[in-house]
């Protein structure tokens, strides 16, 4: 197998991780550190430390020591220029006096200084870069199971076997590429329980997620799992695993010990050395010094000897003075003499990997005998098995240091001295020390440094470790790519039945409540959007236009108590509405605040057709349902929004167009304004509402979605000789504004009542009861705070939504909508002003492009104020 590192080919053998192949290839420096750009090499070889992070196929901060090699993958180094071997920014070490702990809090005391320095610091420090492209594919999966076992070592395997025998459905999550945990890289691979693994793999009720990290445990036993390489088409899969019981069998991880230059490449944890030796067949050095005592140290020494490594010495940690070397370890100074070596093996303290327990609500308590924080007070349904419980730990706490090159936190270059300085500056609680120094807050989330940081904090403040306490492990840990969290992009978009027709006519789309709507149509004769809109506007005012309004929410409300329900939730009286009549419908909440508006048509004694604004349908439907809860009323509400296409045919010639196709009398005597009829248009069933949102003679036509495009097309054909134009939302907004028709949510907000919006006529306070009656009656009796008025700008310009209204130098209101109106040949709009200024002819000023521009208030529609045209 072959892959590319910095564009140069590297050979790999099957089973290799990126890091193991690079190590075999002779590479010793794998990254440059966060702050000082010090060379860093493999340390844990287990995915726990930040030292081997690289950019793999465009994804930054990949832990290469646990990422299997794929043929042809492209691997690049991070945070090093020009190369890992020679990094100019390593010169920052010489200026470390200028950059003490918390130096940017102390240095950049003025915002301007920080703004100037930030881009430079961002570039110099830190981790990988995010490419703007989407380099990988991600997917999500949801699993519900009886039990989840986190960790595929011996404890996890035994727990899975025991539970599987009871017939429980089990998901076993293991972050390695094969089950066995530490047994896989022990002295003898015979220790791996092959029979048990085969039994698990063959069990129908056991699912094994290999190469998968559990990064967090959330409420309701929800586990977040990141599965790498789930199949050839996806790089990562986020598994939402819901388990009735969770067994944490995550084992331990080994942590470094503190001495000057403990971060040099060639200083490696014993577990990392074992993994290189036994998993990858790599002899990690020629001459090694083992730091540790007793049987543990002897064991790793003998394994190294067996692999042909010369052991220069086995040294007790307290005897270490300093490691020597610049790009790599060259030797070690101890109180018993100096040794030359190219490998220092640390037998460090083992820390139970019990972060999940804390996230699940359990506690971590210091156990002095074990030298570790052990899980305690486990929540129900969560248990800990194996080394994670810490029962077998033999930890003796390692010696501490105060040296400025003895690194505690490898992620952000925090040294022992930095922690001591932070404590001296008053950050002597572990949680504040953590935040001040950023120790334990890097990509390794404290795996490597938590115990050391607590040790130093305890020692320096004269407290015990138990008193010092432990920092909180929060998810996600290990880190999760944002792409995996976001998952595949599914943005469902709704098309109206006439969508392809709009497409053909050159529609320019806008998004509205999940729907695609035509904002306007591109035409040969109109160069710009505003020209197109004016052309569409002109056709409606002078001849005829047609707009797709299928996105209106549509509810079919039936039953003996249908009118009772509508009387309750709408402010008008619908029980008195005659069959075949339409009425404007306004809905308020119990505070009298406008929720929605639309029309209600009475199709029969017990049947109403209700329309809502496009974006509010779900809310209105749920509101009606909520009002009905517990009432034994005979009423059924059916959402028929998608079942009907709808269009509004409007303009002086609309009757001539519709008459060619409709089988009913369209004259104003037979079909007056605010009437509705069920009729046929070109043999298609349709519901015609004679209403006039845009202020002209017109019909809103609802027909079954499957015939809507045909009806739309025939109306366009029939209108050709009159010069019909399809119009979009922008022209409709202008047309309705000229009529001073309010759009709920645009011209009203979360505090607007009908009296303020000029809709008081739609509120029938003499009804016995309806939602909002009490506070609407109160509002009707009292002067409103502000009122929605029209205004005409006296000079050129177009105010933006929200622009200030000013009188005598005082702000008195704000613009809610404004457009250029060809009828007025200038900007018109709606605005909220103080109620005292809401009088016809009041002179106000509107802020337009930073300039106060004179305008006049009007309380009447800008166009056809008597409403004669829509009744014609």
């Amino acid at each position, binding site marked *: 197998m072959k892959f590319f590192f910095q564009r140069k080919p590297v050979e790999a053998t099957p089973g290799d991780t990126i890091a193991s192949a690079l190590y075999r290839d002779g590479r010793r420096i794998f990254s440059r550190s966060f702050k000082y750009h010090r060379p860093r090499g493999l340390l844990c070889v287990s995915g726990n430390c930040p030292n081997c992070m690289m950019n793999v196929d465009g994804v930054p901060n990949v832990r290469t020591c646990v990422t299997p090699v794929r043929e042809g993958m492209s691997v690049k180094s991070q945070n090093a220029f020009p190369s890992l071997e020679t990094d100019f920014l390593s010169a920052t070490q010489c200026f470390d006096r200028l950059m003490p702990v918390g130096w940017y809090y102390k240095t950049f005391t003025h915002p301007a200084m920080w703004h100037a320095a930030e881009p430079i610091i961002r570039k110099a420090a830190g981790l990988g870069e995010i490419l703007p492209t989407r380099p990988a594919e991600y997917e999500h999966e949801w699993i519900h199971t009886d039990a989840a076992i986190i960790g595929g070592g011996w404890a996890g395997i035994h727990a899975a076997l025991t539970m599987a025998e009871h017939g429980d459905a089990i998901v076993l999550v293991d972050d390695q590429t094969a089950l066995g945990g530490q047994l896989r890289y022990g002295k003898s691979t015979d220790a791996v329980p092959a029979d048990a693994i085969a039994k698990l793999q063959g069990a129908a009720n056991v699912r094994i997620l290999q190469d998968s990290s559990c990064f967090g445990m*959330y*409420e*309701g036993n*929800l586990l977040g799992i990141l599965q790498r390489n789930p199949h050839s088409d996806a790089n990562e899969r986020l598994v939402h695993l*819901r388990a009735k019981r969770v067994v944490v069998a995550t084992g331990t991880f080994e942590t470094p010990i503190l001495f000057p230059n403990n971060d040099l490449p060639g200083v490696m944890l014993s577990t990392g050395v074992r993994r290189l030796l036994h998993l990858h067949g790599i002899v990690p050095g020629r001459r090694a010094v083992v730091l540790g005592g007793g049987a543990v140290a002897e064991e790793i020494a003998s394994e190294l000897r067996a692999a042909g490594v010369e052991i220069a010495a086995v040294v007790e940690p307290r005897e270490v003075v300093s490691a020597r070397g610049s790009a790599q370890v060259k030797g070690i100074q101890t109180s018993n003499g100096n040794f030359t070596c190219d490998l220092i093996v640390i037998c460090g303290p083992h820390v139970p990997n019990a972060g999940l327990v804390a996230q699940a609500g359990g506690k971590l308590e210091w156990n002095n005998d074990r030298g570790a924080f052990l899980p305690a007070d486990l929540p129900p349904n969560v248990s800990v098995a194996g080394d994670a419980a810490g029962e077998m730990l033999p930890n003796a706490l390692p010696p501490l240091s105060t040296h400025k090159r003895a690194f505690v936190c490898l992620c952000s270059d925090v040294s022992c001295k930095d922690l001591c300085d932070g404590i001296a500056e008053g950050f002597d609680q572990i949680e504040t020390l953590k935040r001040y120094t950023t120790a334990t807050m890097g990509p390794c989330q404290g795996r490597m440094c938590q115990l050391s940081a607590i040790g130093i904090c305890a020692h320096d403040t004269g407290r015990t470790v138990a008193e010092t306490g432990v920092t909180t492990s929060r998810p996600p840990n290990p880190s999760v790519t944002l792409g995996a969290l976001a998952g595949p992009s599914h943005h469902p978009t709704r098309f109206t039945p006439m969508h392809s027709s709009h497409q053909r006519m050159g529609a320019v789309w806008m998004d509205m409540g999940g729907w695609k709507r035509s904002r306007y149509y591109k035409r040969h004769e109109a160069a710009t959007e505003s020209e197109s809109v004016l052309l569409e506007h002109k056709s409606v005012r002078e001849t005829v236009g047609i707009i797709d309004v299928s996105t209106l929410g549509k509810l079919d409300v039936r039953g003996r108590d249908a009118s009772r329900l509508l009387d309750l939730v709408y402010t008008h009286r619908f029980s008195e509405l005659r069959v075949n009549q339409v009425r404007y419908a306004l809905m308020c*909440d*119990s*505070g009298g605040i406008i929720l929605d508006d639309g029309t209600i048509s009475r199709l029969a004694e017990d049947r109403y057709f209700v329309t809502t604004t496009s974006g509010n349908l*779900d809310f209105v439907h*749920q509101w009606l*349902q*909520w*009002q009905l*809860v*517990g*009432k034994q009323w005979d009423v059924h509400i059916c959402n028929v929004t998608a079942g009907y296409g709808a269009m509004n045919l409007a303009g002086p010639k609309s009757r001539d167009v519709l008459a060619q196709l409709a089988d009913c009398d369209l004259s104003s005597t037979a079909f007056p304004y605010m009437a509705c009829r069920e009729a046929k248009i070109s043999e298609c069933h349709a519901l015609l509402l004679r209403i006039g949102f845009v202020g002209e003679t017109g019909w809103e036509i609802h027909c079954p979605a499957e015939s809507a495009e045909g009806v739309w097309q025939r109306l366009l054909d029939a209108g050709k000789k009159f010069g019909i134009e399809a119009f979009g939302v922008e022209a409709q907004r202008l047309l309705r504004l000229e009529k001073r028709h309010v759009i709920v949510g645009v011209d009203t907000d979360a505090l607007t009542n009908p009296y303020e919006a000029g809709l008081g006529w739609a509120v029938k306070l003499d009804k016995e*009861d309806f939602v909002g*009656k*009490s*506070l609407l009656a*109160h509002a009707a009796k009292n002067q409103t705070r502000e009122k929605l008025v029209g205004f005409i700008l006296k000079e050129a310009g177009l105010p933006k939504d929200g622009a200030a209204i000013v009188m005598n130098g005082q702000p008195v209101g704000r613009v809610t909508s404004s457009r250029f109106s060809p009828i007025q040949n200038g900007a018109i709009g709606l605005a909220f002003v103080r109620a005292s200024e809401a009088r016809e002819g009041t002179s106000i000023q509107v802020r337009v492009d930073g300039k106060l521009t004179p305008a006049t208030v009007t309380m009447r529609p800008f166009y056809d104020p008597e409403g004669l045209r829509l009744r014609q």
Partner: protein
Amino acid sequence: MSFLLPCPHCGPRSVYEFRFGGEVTQQPPIDAPETAWIDYRFNRANIAGVQKEWWFHRSGCGQWIQAVRNTISNEVLESFLPEETGR
């Protein structure tokens, strides 16, 4: 928030399937003074502990239900179809 909410119709479901409808309150009588209606509309008990709540099962049965939940632990003690008319 990632707890399971048992829907009386659909069984235990992720809370993300639901729309939260607020605490169950008692609507004042129609002739109650304005202050009572203002209190009903704008003020909440905001209990740190067990309270009765409205939930709408948006991605399920599409029905309003009520649940008794501990707002501190998010433990749902029971859930049922609403019987009373108070809202």
